[in-house]
């Protein structure tokens, strides 16, 4: 090969690299063989305690659900796993149709008109909603009303994305005990977007119709960050009149994997599709008269539009979107409702039992989905440490993000938690030493 190229040694190919820095000695360990590497990775993995080992009541944006075996069987298929973004539709109909299926499923689930092919995660999807709204008003509206009840990570991400921009964020100062209506007074003619979460970060479910009406009355858009699994039993955000629905798709068949890769859901109304970030698959025909699918409206995207693109997003979460499409297909109309209700009933059972314990009090006073807040008699850290000793992964310590919620824990219950597990949690909570 070197002869064909016309050089003598491999090193000759690197003449353009400044000689003084060429071929640095890397201070790295030597190669392992496959069997050695596998053994090392097994050791690392078993240095973790997984949700297979622990009884999990931790949620706060990532949830422990059952993943049907068929999901991974599809994800492992090399044809899906090792393909690139389907730029060449003639040899990518598999991915394209799967995305089209995904788009169809997400629009159905959210009650919206269109869904993109995915965003990175729930946080960045929420942040992209701001960009859409800002672009929609061509920068003429600069205010975003952000509910304090949106996941703290999502809010932080929105702040990061918009730091130093013209956008001014307000709303987080509102009393968290209030529902979405508390945001209404903040919406004005300069408001581009209102962002709420459904169920909110504390698990509470509110009807957002009035909020949407109020926002629309001022000409503002509303984006709802929803848990897609909750939508199996709860009114679709589309029914509230939301303009944008975002969400974290992890509950739909995606393993916890210490936080990622997950799936950013992004759906909106037809009128905003050209302002939307991310890929979109559309239906068309080929030159043989067959139905076929292709990336469309690419003129929004960075590879065509460059600095005028709606977003810089390129690689997104294709395989995770596929996972959720397989998951939603398997569960379907009945299964999703069933799982959604299982979470609901079990969470309510747990909440009821815990609220009867001395020293523990249910903070939520309004309807909630599968997460709820409990005021504890001790710092959450201490309680969680005791739970962990007993093989239980306790809830999220809300004091980290909300000073007013010190000693409040956010507990999540899913279909994975049997009644025995819930009872164990309750008993163990009752036993926490009050020293």
């Amino acid at each position, binding site marked *: 090969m070197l002869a064909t190229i016309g050089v003598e040694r491999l090193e000759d190919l*690197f003449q353009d690299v400044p000689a003084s820095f060429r*071929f640095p000695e890397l201070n790295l360990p030597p190669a392992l063989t496959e069997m050695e590497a596998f053994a090392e990775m097994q050791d690392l993995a078993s240095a973790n305690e997984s949700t297979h080992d622990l009884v999990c009541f931790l949620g706060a944006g990532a949830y422990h659900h059952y993943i049907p075996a068929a999901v991974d069987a*599809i994800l492992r298929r090399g044809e899906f796993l090792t393909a690139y973004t389907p730029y060449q539709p003639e040899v990518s109909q598999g991915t394209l149709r799967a995305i089209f299926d995904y788009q169809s499923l997400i629009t159905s689930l959210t009650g919206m008109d*269109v869904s993109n092919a995915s965003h990175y995660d729930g946080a960045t999807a929420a942040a992209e909603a701001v960009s859409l709204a800002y672009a929609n008003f061509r920068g003429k509206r600069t205010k975003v009303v952000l509910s304090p009840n949106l996941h703290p990570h999502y809010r932080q991400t929105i702040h990061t994305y918009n730091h130093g921009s013209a956008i001014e964020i307000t709303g987080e100062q509102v009393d968290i005990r209030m529902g979405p209506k508390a945001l209404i007074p903040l919406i004005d003619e300069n408001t581009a977007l209102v962002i709420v979460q459904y169920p909110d970060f504390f698990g509470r479910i509110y009807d957002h119709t009035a909020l949407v009406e109020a926002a629309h009355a001022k000409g503002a858009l509303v984006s709802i960050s929803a848990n897609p699994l909750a939508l199996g039993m709860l009114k679709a955000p589309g029914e509230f009149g939301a303009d944008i629905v975002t969400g974290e798709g992890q509950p739909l068949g995606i393993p916890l994997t*210490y936080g990622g890769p997950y799936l950013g859901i992004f759906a909106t109304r037809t009128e905003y599709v050209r302002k939307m970030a991310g890929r979109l698959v559309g239906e068309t025909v080929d030159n043989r008269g067959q139905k076929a699918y292709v990336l469309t409206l690419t003129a929004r995207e960075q*590879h065509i539009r460059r600095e005028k693109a709606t977003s810089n997003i390129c690689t997104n979460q294709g395989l995770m979107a596929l996972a959720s499409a397989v998951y939603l297909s398997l569960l379907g109309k009945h299964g999703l409702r069933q799982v959604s209700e299982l979470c609901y009933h079990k969470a309510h059972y747990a909440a009821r039992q815990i609220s009867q314990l001395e020293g523990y009090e249910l903070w939520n006073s309004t309807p909630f989905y599968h997460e709820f807040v409990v005021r504890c008699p001790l710092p959450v850290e201490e309680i969680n440490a005791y739970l962990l000793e007993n093989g239980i992964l306790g809830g999220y310590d809300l004091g980290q993000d909300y000073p007013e919620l010190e000693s409040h824990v956010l507990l999540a219950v899913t279909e994975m938690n049997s009644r025995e597990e819930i009872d164990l949690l309750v008993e163990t909570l009752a036993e926490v030493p009050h020293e």
Partner: protein
Amino acid sequence: MNEPLLCDLSVPGRVGIRYPAPDVPLAELPAGLERQNLPLPEVYEVDVVRHFTRLSQLNHSIDTGFYPLGSCTMKYNPKLNEETARLPGFAHIHPLQPIETVQGSLALMFELQEWLIEIGGFAGVTLQPAAGAQGELTGILIIRAYFESRGETQRVKILVPDSAHGTNPATSAMSGMRVVELKSDLRGNVDLGALQAECDDTLAGLMLTNPNTLGLFDENVEEVIRLVHQAGGLVYGDGANMNALLGIVRPGDLGFDLLHYNLHKTFSTPHGGGGPGSGPVGVAAHLVDYLPAPVVAILEEADDESDLPPLYGLVTPSKSIGRVKAFHGHFGMAVRAYTYMRVHGKEGLRMISEYAVLNANYLLARLRDHYHVPFDRICMHEFVAEGRWPDAPDIHALDVSKRLMDFGFHPPTNYFPLIVHESLMIEPTETESKQVLDAFAEAMIKIAVEAHHQPELLKNAPHNTPVGRLDEVKAAKELVLCCAVGSYTE
């Protein structure tokens, strides 16, 4: 190609998986908030598995054939990585678990940070960004925060060479910076004159891809960086092309202030039909404090005497730009990339780049006489040829691409770099054997001949694919973006 869509498979009453009945008393459903209509498919597991299995077969993929898609580094993705990422101790841990219960993950992330620091010649790394483009965004936000903290808020200009990937200008614009395009010189390098002209005190930085998207190592890279630094700016590296540089040169040594890696290119995590990726960012010492939160650090050093391992934890850098996403980045991709690095080790990493560059130059040598190569010098891991000939005026790069499909190859990248007309951006990667390269070269040469003698073969290509050329205008005009509402329920 008669695989129906899911919505067409749906039959009322079917379900692909059963769930247990509640084992707790039922709670009342929330009044007025209950869903009335859930239009999702109703199918069996067998329907789902068949549907997606059949769909998969309509794809070209690395596992089924050569995929020389320039700038995408479509290298083979070792199967081992898929196994390690699925170990229950990695796949089933919650991101918010107490750090004592996830020391394995944190150790892995810490080590991966260290490897990336060493490979790139940096002082710190964040694993948070979800993909290359988000790495860029992170980088630009770091640059802005850096100047902000120094009171140099007037520095809002980002220079982007005209050969850059679309994400570079898009990112800069998205971060509210002013994008100025820099032209390339005749050898494909950054035009030093043009650069110098922009080096003023509004300069925030330059986004440089090196090797650039022509596959060329910028011959003046040190001078380019010197100029930017001299003007007070920072140099951001788009590391999408790091597959050429492992063990060859460390961008940090060259003076790059920060750079994103694409684990889904250089470090073999699979592309998944469009993600998930992972775009860690490495930064020089003066930028470490600005990294997004959290970063993995050692909270308590190992205690060799009592044989205790270090305690790893998550920390927020002092001037952090904040979070760029929820949780800690694409940990699943980090597991795959780390597995890959461990298998290659120090020597192996350099061999990756050497062979990637060897393969590209070999293909270039084989094709040079048949395709015009506008910037024809020794390339790095990829090169750009033109898919056009003066004496075959009807033929475009896209025709060459489509015709390649008939030979079982995925086409090269077509849509960029924009500075080459009818570009065919070819990146073979190091995992392809000479046999594959030769077969590809022969197909390319045959197509070059066909372009002159049987152009209709190209114009009508592809012929052997599940679908033929698509009506993209119709797709954009009629905008059918999902199954008709209610189509899941007859």
